[in-house]
């Protein structure tokens, strides 16, 4: 307990002193995970929508694969991306390994299936006649997508929060493809591993607390958005 308390005190000290390493690492965490989640949304929401509304052969199998993807171990994704991006790998020529871009790729692959899965479920929960109703009213395809997303926003915001939560907290893939480089690819989770490995438990706990607080603030914001329209409708 003493250790936890001194970790908490260290967290306050780091924030109060505007520790530059802490700031860099936190900003980098938000940048990498935020961007990966954004990409997952931009690609995942339309894909989830198509899967929900589409009627094609093998649809159930594809949905099954997506749902499996939601539980994919991040460390396995990291290993796979690493093998693809190292010099001896198929995409080695792009020199992406040990960069933030590589981390975004890995985190996108982790968050993507989650966004697709949640979106698909959220859209499937909508009244079946709704798209037809919109078509009758003269809405184009993009407009329909936009309206359906608004209708399904409870599920969609959960999708974003789930995706972001998964990637901001994962360490295996970030460590493997990013290399935990102090100036360029170290994020909060990999920094915690480093500090623990050096025996700096206070600093490690402090970083953990900061990670939790940061994740909480992001999710609080998203939850507020999610719940706001519920209240507006008197729901």
């Amino acid at each position, binding site marked *: 307990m003493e250790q936890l308390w001194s970790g908490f005190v260290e967290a306050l000290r780091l924030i109060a002193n505007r520790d530059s390493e802490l700031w860099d690492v936190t900003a980098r965490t938000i*940048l*990498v995970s935020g*961007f990966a989640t*954004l*990409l997952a949304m*931009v690609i995942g929401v339309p894909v989830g929508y198509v899967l929900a509304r589409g009627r094609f052969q093998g649809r159930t199998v594809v949905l099954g694969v997506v749902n499996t993807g939601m539980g994919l171990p991040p460390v396995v994704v990291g290993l796979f991306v690493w093998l693809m991006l*190292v*010099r*001896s790998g198929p995409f*080695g*020529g792009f*020199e992406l*390994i*040990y*960069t*933030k*871009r590589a981390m*975004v790729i890995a985190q996108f692959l982790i968050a993507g299936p989650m966004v697709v899965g949640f979106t698909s479920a959220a859209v499937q929960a909508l009244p079946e006649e709704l798209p037809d109703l919109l078509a009758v009213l003269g809405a*184009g395809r*993009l*407009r329909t997508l*936009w309206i359906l997303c608004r209708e399904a926003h409870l599920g969609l915001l959960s999708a974003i929060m789930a995706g972001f939560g998964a990637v901001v907290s994962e360490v295996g893939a970030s460590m493997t493809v990013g*290399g*935990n*480089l*102090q*100036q*360029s*690819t170290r994020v909060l989770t990999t920094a915690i591993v480093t500090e623990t*490995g*050096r*025996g700096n438990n206070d600093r490690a706990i402090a970083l953990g607390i900061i990670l939790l607080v940061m994740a909480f603030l992001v999710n609080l914001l998203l939850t507020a958005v999610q719940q706001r329209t519920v209240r507006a409708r008197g729901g």
Partner: protein
Amino acid sequence: MTNRLSLLLIALAALLFPLLAACGGDDSPAATPTKAAGTTAASTEAPKPTATPEPTKIGGSMILATTTSTQDSGLLDVLMPMFQKQTGIDVKVIAVGTGAALQMGAKGDADAVLVHAPTSEKPFVDSGDLIEGKLVMHNDFILVGPSSDPAKIKGLKDLNAAMTAIAATGPFISRGDASGTNTAELALWKAANLDIKNVKGREETGQGMLATLNVADQKNAYTLSDRATYLANKKNLKLEILFEGPKALLNIYHVYVVNPAKHPGVKLAQARAFVSFMVAPETQKTIADFKKADYGQSLFIADAGKSEDSIGN
């Protein structure tokens, strides 16, 4: 109405591209242009570096594969800024287990390799994957264990006798991660003619030195540690040094260039600059003085230029 929607999507796409660029910003290889200095001859394709070539600012970036214990000692945090200042080269230090570091060299995924497992290194030198190897420094391994010392190894003079005694009483915690330390541990059992299966209570953590020390500490067990990690964490551990000294416990570090003839992507100029740097007199002095004030003894003994046999005398 669809116009507004399309506009929104275009705006989103426009937002993504600069973010992508910003994301990649500080990761692109150092844009430091090659300085056309008068003495560039020394830094380009010279077949063998001369005695102490002047470091020239060649810039660029490289990947150094090294071990977690080297990284955790903090030595590289001191040396890398020095190297960058002298040469302008941005080094990506990737600290993994020795086994993984050597594999990275064998596949050409790194430009230089700094490891400390001479027996494990040999096959890669023989196969021609690692070239231009240089001796850099050494420290030593120690046997640590509970102060109660059930195997009674403290005061023993013979290493094999100590290993045999530990095998009989146990428990012993191994790193089990193909690291330099793990390789040394396995060699010790072998030298004493002991099968690891017959070592009482031997467990493998598969993790780094500190994690392994913590396990041994909690379980009141023996383990083989490098002196640096033990000293750095002594304050949190109840384990004590129970056996030290013999040549068999030396932990010797070499640095290698990954062979560009076998692996075309290797950045030869940068890797060679790194090797030269590690054996340069100023660097060697920094290594010898590293944390000497904190521990009253050197964590690493600088060995560049010495013959391999003379180490530890």
